[in-house]
């Protein structure tokens, strides 16, 4: 198993290099003016300014030369300078990724716990009022557009009844904790500032719930259907015939089997949300990597597109690896032969 994991880890840099090359070529050959983020619209007809900027950012070089320079910089860990923020892309990502990770991890934990619990109880009490209610809750979570549920919940809970704070990671008047992990909740605790921790947690709660609700919807439905299918299998009947109580059949036998598809979805969803939590980030003014990615793509910010692609690819590769490892844990029949 260890050799298998090491082999998978060793392949990651090569895969990332391939992804970065494809991303570079696709973005550079996409229709659009790459100076959109560098030269304001009103100056685009000024040839002197346009040429100066083109030269400054190396856009006057032929594509193959730009590609070689890009790869050369990349292997040295230099992702380039963003056309839009005018800062190193690595700095931008290092600043924004923790915000996204903090949000996504909380949303995933919340969504998974709620989804598994509701799915399990729905399967156990199939056809009951609880089952119906849980399924409706799940359906709403996975069907409601986040821009709607987010805005409505923000309006109700923050504006109307003031039980949660507004947007952002902290109140704007508050100075963030010293940067250690980039997770404000963790950094506040490390700084020993429990009041700040409370504020960071309060700000995290609603966006994590909104994002987690969508995850809950998927996990609930998947868990419920997998469990119901499992509970009608021969092995479940055998367990019951041998005198196992229904709770044991459900948790010790059926749930473990049902976890395989759930793990697949969890792995994929986590990786997707790293760059895909755009709407949640926009509504809750959460300065994460998703909104950075969208802005980079819309403005043809080549270096930022490359950087975000690498982060997104990394998330998928690592999530896939962790999912595969979790498979083996969840189901001993899955064997890895190194």
């Amino acid at each position: 198993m260890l050799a298998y994991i090491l082999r998978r880890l060793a392949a990651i840099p090569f895969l990332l290099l391939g992804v970065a090359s494809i991303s570079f070529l696709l973005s550079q050959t996409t229709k659009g003016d790459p100076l959109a983020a560098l030269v304001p619209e009103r100056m685009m007809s000024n040839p002197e300014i346009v040429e100066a900027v083109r030269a400054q950012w190396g856009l006057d070089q032929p594509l193959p030369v730009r590609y070689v320079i890009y790869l050369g910089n990349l292997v040295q860990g230099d992702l380039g300078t963003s056309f839009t923020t005018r800062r190193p892309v690595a700095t931008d990502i290092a600043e924004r990724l923790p915000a996204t990770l903090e949000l996504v991890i909380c949303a995933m934990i919340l969504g998974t716990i709620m989804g598994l619990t509701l799915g399990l109880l729905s399967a156990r009490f199939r056809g009951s009022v609880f089952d119906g209610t849980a399924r409706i809750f799940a359906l709403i979570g996975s069907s409601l557009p986040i821009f709607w549920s987010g805005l409505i919940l923000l309006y109700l809970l923050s504006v109307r009844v003031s039980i949660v704070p507004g947007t952002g990671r902290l109140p704007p008047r508050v100075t963030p904790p010293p940067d250690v992990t980039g997770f404000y909740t963790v950094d506040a605790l490390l700084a020993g500032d429990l009041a700040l921790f409370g504020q960071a947690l309060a700000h995290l709660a609603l966006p994590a719930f909104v994002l987690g609700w969508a995850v809950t919807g998927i996990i609930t439905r998947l868990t419920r259907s997998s469990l119901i299918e499992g509970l009608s299998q021969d092995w479940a009947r055998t367990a019951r015939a041998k005198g196992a109580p229904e709770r044991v059949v459900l948790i010790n036998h059926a749930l473990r089997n049902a976890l395989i598809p759930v793990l697949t979805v969890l792995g994929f969803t986590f990786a997707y949300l790293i760059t895909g939590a755009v709407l949640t980030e926009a509504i809750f003014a959460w300065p994460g990597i998703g909104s950075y990615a969208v802005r980079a793509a819309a403005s043809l910010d080549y270096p930022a597109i490359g950087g975000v692609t690498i982060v997104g690819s990394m998330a998928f590769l690592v999530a896939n690896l962790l999912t595969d490892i979790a498979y083996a844990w969840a189901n001993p029949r899955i064997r890895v032969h190194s």
Partner: protein
Amino acid sequence: MNTPIRTGLAALLLGAASFVSPAAAQDSDTLVIARSMDVNSLDPSRAFCDTCQFYLTAVYETLVTLDADNQTLVPNLASEWEVNDDFTEFTFMLKDATFADGSPVEASDVVWTFERLKNLKGSPSFLMDGLTSAEAVDAKTVKFTVDAPNSEFLNKVSAPYAGIINAEVAQANGAIGDETAAEADKAEPWFLANSAGSGPFQLSAYSPENELRLSRNDQYWGEAPAFAEVVVTQITDAVSQLQALETGQVDIAMQIDPDTAQSSRSPDVTTEVVPSYNFVYVGFIPGAKGMAEVLTPEVRQALALAIDYDGMLDFTVGGNGKKIAAPIPNGFPGTAGLTPRSQDVEKAKQMLADAGQENLSLVAGYPNDNIYGVDFNIMMQKVQQDWAAIGVNLELKPLTWAVWRDELAAGEWPVTAVYYAPDYYGSGQYVAYFGMIDGYPWTNRASVGQPDLVVNPAEADLYAQALAASGDEADALYTQLGEEMMKDTIIVPLVSPDLVLAYRSDIEGVRYSACCNLPLAEISRK
């Protein structure tokens, strides 16, 4: 429950409660502003954006600035100035001002700043077009010479991008002012984290598309601003900005449209609708592929006549805006004598028939965006509907900015829509941008390499005369220029949207400035 856990829980609850309490904002020495930031740089000589306008105004000071009437130039760093009779030499006498590091603002700083602004070939470099010499006469006197009469030079130096930089500090951090600046200047990253101005505030932190923090300049030579700190926090959409305002999370929301403002029920929020100098327009491109023989002046005039301008106001901004005649904002020099266009469908049909274009089909490529509260899709749907009434079929093509710019330069379609906001108070900037004068920006765009299609020789002459005149004489010339631009019918302004000033009721001093957007130093808490 043991003591540490109990203490932790209490602190947690206190933390959350202290946030949601509206009292948190009322005593605060920090002004919080919600805005979707469009910062492209924080270097005064490179920046060019609406957010940059008020940031630069707060941190860097110009020689002269615009008074609250949005028309009169008043002293800022310069105590007085002299202009020669033909508007080619401008001499400024400086006040005893200091930069944030305590060093005096001297003529050499002004000369270096203006030379760098010119040589950097950055977005606002056009402000120094025609500058032939900048000379420090003595430590407190600076003289500029331009190559042709320019009665708008004073207005240009009131633009926030012409804010004076502490030359010594900037040079120590990679800034270069001489002719090599475009290639050799490396100071932009430094300006993203630091500032070197003489304004009432200085930059304390900047996180792109997240937060911009300013702190009071304790060395400020003038009247100290009321707030110790200003935080501009990124909130992108109008509804979220209003929610943040209602909860007291922010003190000012800068981009609330009139419709959203009307939905506010909070007694703690004040909204004022004021006229702006921004406008949105339709632009014709006769040089677009296959359009040279089609989009003639007569056809363009027919299309302009077909637009329902009153309906456009209701359709796009719910009536919260003004009609505008020429591509010069209402209230700017020369606009008093101009009459906005009005709809005449029958005449438009007749003109199209006379031109043999009864079954015209056109494509409009435009940015898929919402600018100054105007949704460009809605605006262009209205144009589509109006033109359908005269038998013209308009295909709409909303595009990302990058693709729009690419296709615009290539002349892919004959109709577009854009917007404009002033950089300073003065009508010359509009002629320099929209005038059909050979080599000028919109001449190049509209002609796509065929200037004879659009150039209006009268405008170059009138513009030169306007720059050599002042007062009523200049106003009359700008009126003529406005009329000529209306005759060109390349730029058809549709709406000048009103601006919503939305702020907490305990805030005062919020106003809209034509040069500087939102003067932060004038704002205080009651």
